């Protein structure tokens, strides 16, 4: 299968800070890859290397078989600008026309705006758009050149549910037509909804790389909260923390844990079961130094 983008032992430093540490990653044609990681993990730096915005301090980066810093390698690439960076004086159709002008066979502006729910805003200056409209515009321009590979950096941050779902549909349609996508996200839900392959990055390193199921099985999926005096040893608890009589337990199987709690006869109350947020789930995949900074009281590994 054709590899559209690749990093080999890529390391990127900013002065003393190592943003990416020895990352090797292949992006084969047709894949929808989700890049997960906390803020500052190195996701954006990785996308910047792939887009030719930065060069690696060491190691190599390839895009369509060559250096992404050569302009012609980027003819089949689509990227999103940051929505805060749209030139405020340019009109919506001017922004799209400008980007479209760089490609051989762009999607007609009206058709693209319709796909992304921006019809009727052609003449609006981009500085006058709402946050959600700006976001849809920046994602839309990534697709205007009919690219083979699209890099989406936090595509739905700040969007309401409807807008997020219609954007997901657009990404799915593109992928079903054979398009390749690398997307970063804070939302586990988003990656679950879209990605076939998940790469977890933290502190510049790849911590996990596999199918959605592979990666999910590496992190405790549920967080169980309750109040109780003391808890016995419970099966299936991967991590726990305690603050007075409040307990937080992380587990892959919350149903089994709750059953065990009930049968144990412990006098617990205020039981809450939630899908662990990404930040919490990643604690198990991240390094000890990261644990030290996490606000967890009396943490014990079991």
């Amino acid at each position: 299968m054709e590899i559209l983008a690749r990093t080999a032992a890529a390391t990127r430093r900013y002065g003393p800070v190592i943003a990416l540490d020895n990352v090797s990653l292949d992006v084969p044609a047709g894949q929808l890859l989700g890049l997960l990681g906390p803020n500052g993990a190195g996701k954006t730096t990785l996308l910047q290397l792939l887009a030719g915005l930065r060069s690696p301090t060491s190691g190599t980066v390839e895009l369509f078989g060559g250096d992404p810093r050569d302009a012609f390698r980027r003819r089949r690439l689509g990227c999103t600008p940051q929505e805060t960076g749209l030139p405020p004086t340019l009109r919506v159709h001017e922004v799209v026309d400008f980007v479209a002008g760089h490609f051989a066979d762009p999607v007609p502006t009206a058709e693209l705006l319709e796909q992304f729910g921006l019809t009727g805003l052609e003449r609006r200056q981009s500085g006058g758009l709402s946050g959600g409209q700006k976001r849809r515009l920046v994602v839309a321009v990534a697709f205007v050149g009919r690219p083979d590979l699209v890099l989406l950096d936090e595509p739905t941050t700040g969007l309401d549910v409807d807008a997020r779902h219609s954007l997901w549909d657009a990404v799915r349609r593109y992928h079903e037509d054979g398009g390749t996508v690398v997307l970063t996200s804070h939302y586990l839900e988003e990656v679950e909804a879209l990605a076939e392959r998940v790469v977890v990055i933290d502190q510049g390193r790849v911590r996990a790389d596999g199918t959605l199921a592979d990666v999910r099985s590496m992190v405790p999926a549920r967080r169980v909260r309750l109040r109780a005096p003391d808890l016995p040893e419970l099966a299936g608890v991967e991590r726990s923390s305690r603050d007075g009589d409040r307990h937080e337990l992380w587990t892959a199987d919350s149903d089994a844990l709750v059953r065990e709690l009930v049968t144990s006869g412990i006098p617990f109350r205020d039981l809450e079961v939630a899908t662990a947020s990404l930040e919490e789930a990643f604690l198990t995949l991240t390094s000890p130094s990261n644990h030290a900074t996490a606000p967890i009281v009396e943490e014990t590994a079991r």
Partner: protein
Amino acid sequence: MSAPTIARLTRLHTRYQFTETIRIPVAVISTTLFPALSLLFFVVPQQFAQDPGTATASAAQLAVFAVMSVCLFTYGVGVAEDRALPWDGYTRTLPVGPAPRLIGRVVNGLAFVVLGLLPLVLIAWWFTAATLPLSRLALTVAALLVAGLPLFAIGISIGYSLSTKAALAVAQLLLLPLAFGGGLFIPPDTFPDWLNTTSMWLPTRAARDLVVTATTGVDLPGTTLLVLGGWTLLAGSLAVWAYRRDEGRRFR
């Protein structure tokens, strides 16, 4: 279908840069009107405004000043501002090399120089004894272009090597010493010897002498072309180095 040609990309970038700049007219007006206003207030009321030689030289000096302020502000500060915007980073992910963007900048800079020179020339023509025979017009335009080369390179170096705030400070810091020291406001023949000697090494002085020679036909000092070439080479190398090193903002 084939990929867009460099010519098409150049037209695209030139048009968009112009559109973006012209929609914020204040910046355009201040840069383009200042030289004309200087001529109106500081030259027109003086006795020497009625002496063809001196008046022509004064207008020529201010023309060089117009070129310099566009170079320092449009190129120096403008480029630094653009680099700080995420949009600039985004345009670097598009399949376009540096040439169309740079040519777009040069063309836009030239357009604003012309906008700045128009009122200057009109005021010099109507209110002073300055003359420019048609036979010298092409020579003067060429002289302005050559004189602008080192200033353009200095502007680009500033733009690609400094942050917006630093670029603005450096541009303002350079503007007046280069203008006064180069004899753009006060004619150099009134300089004391030491200042005149120092002045000969400045790019603005060489630029001024070249343009004054082109307009009035006075003798060109022997060092002028050497100084212009030297500064162009020096600032040009710095500009190329700064452009290559540039990755937009320093941090994420």
